[in-house]
């Protein structure tokens, strides 16, 4: 029950770039129903902002996308061009990782001091792109906590049932968490 209002490409661009003014942001927030054409306008605007040509299927983060890299391949790709691999495997496992465990380290990102998480109870994990060093994610979790797979989209259901435009390579085995394929290989590597 979205409505057939149309939002200008300029406004969508301003949202992406963070240049939208408060009046326009409020106007969009107050839409009783969202404009149903937004997704493909959004994808088009995002596609114009990256230097590579692979088709963006979904945006996961500020600089992180699921793209169709080749027929039958859906991978996670950084805005810089770095490819993290199959989107069914948690892309964080392809990152560089830096962990802040001590109070001194934590004090570099939390202030004032009493606001700082407690070492041994918590650690701060920073996940960087191996190529451009963008910080794609932060976890503040207990030591030993499995890395969190924040979002695994069901792309085929989304494109077929939500958008009405099925993907050409849809199949039954896309919507699966295959992160343990990675850790299993790591365990073998010893």
């Amino acid at each position, binding site marked *: 029950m979205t409505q057939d209002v149309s939002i200008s490409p300029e406004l969508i661009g301003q949202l992406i770039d963070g240049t939208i003014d408060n009046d326009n942001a409020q106007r969009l927030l107050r839409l009783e129903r969202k404009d149903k054409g937004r997704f493909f306008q959004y994808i088009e605007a995002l596609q114009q902002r990256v230097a590579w040509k692979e088709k963006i299927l979904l945006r996961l983060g500020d600089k992180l996308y699921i793209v169709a890299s080749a027929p039958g391949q859906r991978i996670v790709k950084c805005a810089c061009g770095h490819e993290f691999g199959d989107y069914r495997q948690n892309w964080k496992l392809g990152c560089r990782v830096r962990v802040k465990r001590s109070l001194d380290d934590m004090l570099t990102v939390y202030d004032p001091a009493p606001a700082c998480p*407690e070492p041994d109870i918590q650690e701060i994990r920073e996940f960087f792109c191996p190529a451009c*060093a963008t910080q794609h994610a932060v976890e503040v979790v207990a030591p030993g906590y499995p890395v969190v797979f924040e979002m695994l989209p069901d792309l085929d259901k989304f494109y077929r049932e939500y958008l009405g435009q099925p993907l050409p390579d849809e199949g039954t085995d896309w919507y699966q968490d295959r992160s343990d394929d990675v850790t299993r290989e790591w365990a073998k590597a010893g």
Partner: protein
Amino acid sequence: MAHAFDNRTQLTPPSKEVRHQTLKQMFEKRDRLTQQTGHYCGVTELTLRAADPIKYERFYNKLHAAVLAARESARFVAASPGSREMGESLWGLATPEGDTLAVSLGFLSHTAIFPVSVRYMAEKEYDVNDGIEDGDVYAVSDGLTGGVPHPGDFYSFVAICYEGEIVGWAVGINHLMENGAPVSGSWATFSVDTFMDGLVCPPMRTGRKLKQESWWKAIWQRRTRAATMNILDDKMRLAGCAMVHDATHKLIKEFGLEYYKRATREIIEESRRMIVDNMHSLMVPGTYNGCAFRLVKYKGLQQIWSHADKNTLLHIRASVEPNDKGLLVDTEGSSRWGYHSYNATPGGADAALFLGMMNSFAHNTKVTAGIELAVQRHYPSGSLYNPDYEFTSNANLWAQTVSLNSIGFNAISRAMFSRGYLEEAFTVDGNWGAWQGSGQTDQGVSYGFTNFEWLGGTGRGAWCYKDGEPIVWAAWSQLATCGDAEEFESCVPPLFYLGRKLLPGYFGHGKYRGGPGNSAVHWCVKPGKHIAVTRPNGGLSCTTSVGLGMSGAYPGPGSFMISARDTNLPALIETGETPRDARELLELVDAGKLEVANLEIWKTDCPELALKDNDLFVDAAGSSGGWGDPLDRDPALVIKDLNDGMAPRYEFTANLYGIVATQDAAGVWTLDADATAARRKAMRHARLADSQSAQDWWAAERTRVLARDFIPEVREMYEQSMSFAKFDNEFRKFWQVPAAFNFPKE
């Protein structure tokens, strides 16, 4: 002995003939029809709306107007600031089964408990023995039988009967100033079980014919420490309910009973459909995972209750999965219940979880039980959210369930970000603060209190396109306000505000930073015979409020408090240099200007702190998280924060955001753009140099996992969460541990 009861029928009037369905029968029908058809009560067609939409909407608007009017009139009966001038109250109208039809402004997700309370009354046959009559008044504050989030939230239910048949319930709710637990206030921290939670009422009749019985007043006077406010709040709830009761009777007379019955079913089904459609229109199907942690620090403080004298690290874990019926929230993997005050019940968990769901999906439809029908919940038995022990405490439930709400709400934000509805995508944090306690004046007047200010207005997390705003937000109410300082001062005679302001730099950092939290300095003057405070918080700073930052930003820091007892404050007052917030207090201490014999910083719940003349009690709460990589922040925004005083420490800010700036004699900061670009480039190189590949990190961490090389609280957290198959499977697959590996009970 049995013959002693033989004459019972002569003592009481004979039971009335049941001319209508019992509540239990109504529930059976509701559940069966809803399950069979997938539509609320089997309403597959909105026939009344289709036949005459104007009449249908006029009918609903009269219902809605009744509950809105109830709040806007009745709250002025109240004495407590939270109910009168803040958002800590609500009125609603529900079906006979407790399904919400309409709600006022206020903390609207509390409608989640209505069906829990009524279902309990139905199962226990309240309407059969000895009957429910028009205008009967019921009190509810129990988590297990009433679904109440915590006993400090108190509910009045008024039965609406028409020609002897129960046709609805008017319900009024507010957060009490004090609810009579061993720990004074309205969140009984340090409770070990329900018997320490204060005034806990399973659904119980306290009045007839819209009038409370005399004994009920005695309960407030003898079982709570704020009788005057609580009695007036009780009258407030009932006054609002009476207005809804009256309006409903008039509505039935105007539209007819059959129309009323059918229309109320259609209203809920209509909103259910709209909510499901909104979920479909705004989200991306898939699985969203989130986590959060809380430390319950009881070790050394619970020696009387030896089974509770331990620390517990709580794990809050949830996934969100949109589906054809709406979406599923699965909490499997969260900790087990414990002998502490942070446990939830399914009803209480719903009240938290529905906050984000209502805000996101019921904004353009009638706010009804439709949300409950669209959001499927899995609270595994034995867990923090569904204890298999009937006497758990849930006095401080909100301290962790706000994170459950944040996990769900952030899943929606991620979905809308991916979908392109960026204007809706922001970071949700659930970090609030409050303080509470009791005292006695020199004249011997006892009082109990709660100060809700940092619960009423918190910083909003960063949007994906701009910084979060200060103070404007409260996930639990549309009526964000921190209230008037003078109101709170009048409630707590010895405590005055030395300062009350935003706390600079107190937010999660990112490309866009979170809205700053707040801090106040409370000054104790002439404490009378006694005053003591405690503090229950929705996210204390030994953990962040949520575990995951958004898109490379840091989650908001948790709340904390400082007690500064035995001070030289009078000397500082002479100089005019007194602290206005937590940061200033610590700086004055470091500078040797404020001398404090007993300075304590609390990053977990504090035990009762007695205050004397010139003692200070300082709090900070309501911070929120950022969005995006801090190195992508526009340097001009960093300079603005430096010049606005929102970034009070240049070195910290420059090191985090990678900027270089100079300050002139007037104190104005100016960006050095070239040096900033070079510094950011160097910091990106340093990130790669200082980090390791995920594989190397994993290999090293796995060794630690296999050795169980964690502090006992962390080990126990894993032992508890791995007692649930879903997290056990995730943990084992991630770390590739042998089948025999486990975290044994210690």
